[in-house]
């Protein structure tokens, strides 16, 4: 074993809380405390591994540093695929980093260290949910999820495929959660907390599997972290800080039954971190000796507060090695290389150590195949329950049918646009530079930039966008021409500054921002004398001040100005003064003496780290004025909330819905069928025209012409009805003026002034004797062989002309015409003879003759419609969306719904429920309307939605309903068809949808088999 402490790996002496080696072994990340923020640093592994690389100055040691975390970084973890780095810190955030393609140095602006970032790592997502410090983060196997735990006692599971989506929040711990580990099989995630418990959670339903408390009951005191670890074969979970007979141990928890019979003993203080070697080993074969069967074993490193490190092999009773006094302070984190032979350890004392083992010491690592075969032997074939498509590759497909569907799907996916996922969605750089170099742009920026005045006379500059980015993939050409260099100085000396600082391994040890600490290799261009860094080490200011030594004292006062928050922004001033009217404030805004700024209030922030004395007094003055707003704030919470919450959405929805209602005036859509201007209670009747004509059907082409009062015979006025069907005419006479007429390809109906309704066949044969309506006809519809009449007395009748029978008998609309202003805005009759009434209030009803009641099929004011989002479930190839009575009545409102859902950010679970409710409504409505095609359309969307969202119960019920009983019995009430669609055929269409989520492969197999069985019968 070789041991190395690379002294250059440091956070300027600040504690290093976490270390993690990149899966490819070429770099590693450290996390810890920065100067006034948290710090994540990425280091080159090569100088650690090889002495000559460490000495070679051309090989960079530090690759990147990120001080975006506002407070100490407690954990850094690379994703298993190595693309991402997750970091969690005391600022309650988890940040996910991705490397930007731009290759070139840059530093953090204003950072005292002049070391350049060789690699660019950019924060791509910030995960906010924790309300306390994030202590540990862990990527699940295959990077499906990212788990983070916090001192807020919770563990949050994030969807690593769709950041920042949260999968769930695991609650149950009653103390600070300080460590996380995933089961390598993917079935569990385990956590350890200060509440003297270690909990195991199932990934299937995110419920608690086990709560292990006994080994921890004795635990006193606390450790900063409790990083537990799961063995690579999945059989053992080893905890941090446990106690056995008042001695600190690392408790071994067996997977089977979560038994706690063994532990690693020997550390003198609490165990902070346990890390299993990713490899499984087998005994090294000695040369010449016969191969011994030997059981494979695991290797585990244990770090403790006692500053020592022990490495254990599960095949040995005693530790392989114990290293004392490696550090001055507690060990905080351990990371193994993927090869299993190297290990980095970091400590609170701000140093790291590298341990290099040989195969002789650890044994022969099993290769991946052997490891997999161990997994297969232990866990059987289907290991992980998957919930995302992306994980398909790792799940075993159990059914050849399933495999067929999968392959079809994959091949079609390859043809189509690339599949979703963080990699695929990575945005590309769109350079706006048009070939102009950055240098040119900078020269003319002042002249070129767009400056406008706001209405109140303020200057407003439109910044020049030099790169559109999300992940920061800059084109090298853009920045190589004129790299943006650190520490804003004019361009000429920027370059020299860069070069000189690069070539000199400057001390870069300054903690604060005191100017003199920096190697001031660049001379301020004032011509002032330059001094080397060694000259100004003690006289911090002298290097800078040069000619004005007398001014040293004021500098101290000036220094504080850098860190104090500015007195007030006009914004704050404005609000405070606007409240001033409500609340008399003692500290009236003082005049800041600004040239253009409005009156300033000395609103200091308490957070500014080094506020000086005079600030304190100002704060005292302020305390009154600050309190007031806070008090007021409470009262105004309601107002604030309302603004963000639902009402805002409703506001959004209202203007959305209205235009659509206006856009579908009935007359425009179906001129022949509708006639319903406003009326209070009774429905309006069409006025009698001398003559009118209408086209009844396109195919065959049927025209209807009505001419009223053509002749007077024996005092009665006769009206003529003329019909032309495919060129053949017929006509008939009616004893009264025709008020309205309607027709289909099968029947024609006319309503006369004398409240008589006559029905003719398409050839002019009278089919029914004249029907006497109770009140004059308001609207008349024909469809197939159905005739519907809506009377002015707000009653509805529908007749089946073939069967000569009433489907709906004088049904009153009063029950749906609630409210004085509501009137019928649209009415229609479906091909199946279902009457549909659209009302002016946006609601739409159909009368179900089987239920003998009005059923609501569409409500444009329904927020459900506005929020339902099932875009992901739409069939891609079915270009004609859905056409039928349901679509006609709901109109383009559906699109509006999708639009609205995109604009408003409804919480996912809420939206999910709303979508589900909406889809079920659609399905039921289509059923009531007897609109078979629409039923099929919505059924498939519904099934896909259930599959995507993983609601197994509903899906199973749906399949069961479609399948029906396999064995016929007289007692079953199951109908094999619905709306003329064979249910089992529908099931056959639903099954390929189910395949899309491998989680349901059992369900698929079950129904697929039964369908096959039925087919063979």
């Amino acid at each position, binding site marked *: 074993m070789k041991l190395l402490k690379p002294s250059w790996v440091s956070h300027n002496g600040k504690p290093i809380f976490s270390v993690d080696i990149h899966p490819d072994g070429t770099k590693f990340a450290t996390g810890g405390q920065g100067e006034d923020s948290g710090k994540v640093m990425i280091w080159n592994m090569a100088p650690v591994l090889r002495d000559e690389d460490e000495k070679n100055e051309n090989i960079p040691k530090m690759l990147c540093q990120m001080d975006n*975390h506002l407070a100490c970084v407690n954990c850094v973890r690379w994703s298993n695929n190595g693309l991402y780095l997750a970091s969690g810190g005391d600022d309650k955030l988890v940040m996910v980093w991705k490397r930007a393609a731009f290759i070139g140095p840059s530093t953090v602006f204003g950072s005292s260290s002049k070391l350049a970032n060789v690699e660019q790592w950019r924060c791509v997502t910030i995960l906010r949910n924790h309300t306390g410090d994030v202590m540990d983060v862990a990527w699940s196997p295959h990077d499906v999820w990212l788990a983070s735990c916090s001192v807020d006692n919770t563990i949050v599971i994030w969807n690593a495929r769709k950041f920042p989506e949260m999968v769930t929040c695991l609650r149950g711990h009653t103390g600070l959660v300080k460590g996380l580990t995933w089961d390598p099989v993917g079935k569990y995630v385990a956590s350890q907390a200060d509440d003297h418990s270690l909990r195991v959670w199932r990934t299937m339903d995110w419920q608690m599997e086990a709560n292990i408390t006994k080994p921890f009951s004795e635990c006193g005191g606390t450790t900063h972290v409790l990083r537990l670890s799961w063995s690579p074969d999945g059989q053992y979970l080893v905890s941090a800080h446990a106690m056995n007979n008042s001695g600190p141990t690392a408790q071994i928890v067996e997977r089977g039954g979560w038994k706690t019979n063994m532990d690693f003993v020997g550390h003198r203080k609490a165990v902070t971190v346990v890390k299993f070697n990713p490899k499984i080993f087998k005994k090294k074969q000695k040369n010449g000796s016969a191969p011994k069967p030997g059981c494979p074993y695991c290797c585990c490193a244990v770090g403790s507060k006692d500053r020592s490190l022990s490495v254990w092999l599960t095949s040995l009773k005693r530790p392989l090695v114990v290293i004392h006094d490696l550090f001055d302070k507690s060990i905080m984190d351990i990371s193994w290389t993927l090869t299993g032979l190297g290990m980095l350890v970091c400590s609170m004392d701000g140093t790291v150590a590298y341990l290099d083992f040989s195969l002789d010491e650890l044994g022969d690592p099993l290769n991946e195949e052997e490891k997999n075969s161990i997994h297969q032997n232990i866990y059987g074939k289907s290991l992980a329950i998957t919930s995302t498509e992306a994980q398909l590759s790792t799940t075993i497909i159990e059914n050849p049918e399933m495999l067929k569907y999968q392959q079809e799907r994959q091949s079609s996916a390859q043809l189509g646009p690339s599949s979703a996922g963080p990699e695929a969605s990575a945005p590309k750089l769109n350079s706006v530079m048009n070939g102009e170099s950055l240098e040119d742009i900078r020269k003319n920026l002042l002249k070129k930039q767009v400056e406008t005045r706001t209405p109140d006379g303020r200057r407003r500059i439109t910044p020049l966008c*030099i790169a559109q980015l999300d992940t920061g993939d800059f084109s090298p050409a853009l920045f190589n021409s004129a790299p943006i260099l650190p520490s804003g100085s*004019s361009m000429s000396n920027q370059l020299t500054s860069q070069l000189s600082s690069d070539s000199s391994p400057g001390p870069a040890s300054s903690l604060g921002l005191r100017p003199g600490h920096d190697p001031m290799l660049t001379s301020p261009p004032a011509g002032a004398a330059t001094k080397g860094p060694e000259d100004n080490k003690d006289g911090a200011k002298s290097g800078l001040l040069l000619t004005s030594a007398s001014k040293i004292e004021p500098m101290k006062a000036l220094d504080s100005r850098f860190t104090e928050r*500015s007195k007030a*922004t*006009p914004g704050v001033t404005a609000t405070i003064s606007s409240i001033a009217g409500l609340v008399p404030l003692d500290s009236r805004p003082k005049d800041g003496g600004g040239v253009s700024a409005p009156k300033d209030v000395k609103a200091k922030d308490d957070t500014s780290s080094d506020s000086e004395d005079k600030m304190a007094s100002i704060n005292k003055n302020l305390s009154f004025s600050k309190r007031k707003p806070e008090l007021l704030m409470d009262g105004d*919470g309601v107002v*604030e909330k309302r603004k963000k919450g639902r009402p805002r959405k409703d506001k959004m929805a209202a203007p959305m819905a209205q235009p659509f209602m206006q856009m579908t005036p009935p007359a425009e859509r179906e001129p022949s069928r509708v006639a319903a201007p406003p009326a209070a209670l009774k429905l309006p009747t069409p006025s009698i025209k001398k003559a009118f004509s209408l086209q009844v059907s396109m195919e065959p082409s049927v025209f209807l012409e009505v001419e009223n009062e053509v002749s007077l015979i024996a005092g009665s006025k006769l009206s003529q009805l003329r019909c032309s069907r495919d060129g053949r005419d017929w006509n008939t006479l009616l004893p009264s003026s025709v008020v309205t007429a309607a027709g289909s390809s099968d029947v024609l109906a006319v309503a006369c002034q004398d409240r008589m309704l006559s029905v003719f066949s398409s050839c002019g044969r009278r089919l029914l004797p004249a029907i006497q309506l109770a009140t004059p006809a308001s609207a008349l519809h024909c469809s197939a062989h159905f005739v519907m009449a809506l009377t002015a007395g707000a009653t509805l009748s529908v007749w089946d002309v073939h069967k000569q029978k009433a489907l709906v008998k004088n049904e009153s609309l009063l029950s749906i015409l609630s409210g004085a202003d509501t009137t019928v805005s649209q009415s229609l009759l479906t091909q199946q003879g279902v009457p549909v009434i659209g009302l002016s209030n946006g609601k739409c009803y159909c009368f179900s003759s089987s239920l003998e009641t009005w059923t609501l099929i569409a409500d444009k004011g329904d927020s459900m419609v506005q929020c339902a989002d099932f875009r992901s479930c739409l069939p891609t190839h079915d270009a004609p969306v859905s056409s039928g009575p349901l679509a006609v009545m709901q109109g383009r409102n559906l699109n509006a719904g999708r639009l609205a859902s995109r604009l408003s950010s409804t919480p996912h679970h809420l939206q999910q429920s709303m979508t589900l409710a909406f889809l079920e409504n659609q399905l039921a409505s289509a059923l009531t309307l007897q609109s078979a095609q629409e039923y099929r359309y919505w059924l498939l969307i519904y099934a896909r939605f259930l599959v995507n969202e993983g609601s197994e119960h509903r899906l199973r019920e749906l399949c069961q309903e479609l399948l029906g009983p396999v064995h016929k019995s007289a007692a079953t009430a199951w109908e094999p068809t619905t709306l003329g669609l064979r249910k089992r055929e529908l099931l056959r269409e639903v099954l390929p949808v189910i395949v899309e989520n491998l989680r349901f492969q059992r369900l698929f197999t079950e129904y697929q088999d039964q369908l096959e069985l039925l087919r063979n019968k």
Partner: protein
Amino acid sequence: MAKVQVLNVAVLDNPSPFGNPFQFEITFECMEDLPEDLEWKIIYVGSAESEEYDQVLDSVLVGPVPAGRHMFVFQADAPNTGLIPESDAVGVTVVLITCTYRGQEFIRIGYYVNNEYTDPELRENPPLKPDYTQLLRNILASNPRVTRFHINWEGSADKMEDCENVDPSPNISGMLPPSCIPGKMPPLGLMPDNSMDCM
């Protein structure tokens, strides 16, 4: 984490005569589209002794700011010499660039500024009343001092991560008449571009 990161500030026209305008070329990067403008200010510290002599040289709104890397030049007139205490005219002082979003300052970049006579004779025997025309302003551009503040970027009360650390001002907006967009102050005027977020 801050949505806006300042990547670089280049001090242009430096050193220069005292009366020349300040010019800073600011490069910043924005993580996501900002619905509201950034407000940048240049503050000249007239005297180290007291904030009373601070001068806001200018403030500009910068927007719209979509996600991406942006740059602009912020030019502001030289300080009003009448407001600078005579004893503090020559020597070292500070110029600050601050940026606020929704009325909350999230970054403060400070530079030492050295004002000196170029003429050696004047340097030896400075006049009692400072002669500003002879002063050379030198900004110590190589050594910016950057202080970042944690602010509430969302501008809404319940998303606030750190109540005690965040400037209370965004919440004050709750007291405005409901017709106001939160975080926007009437005296600044409503920017029509931003009404988009109501759609």
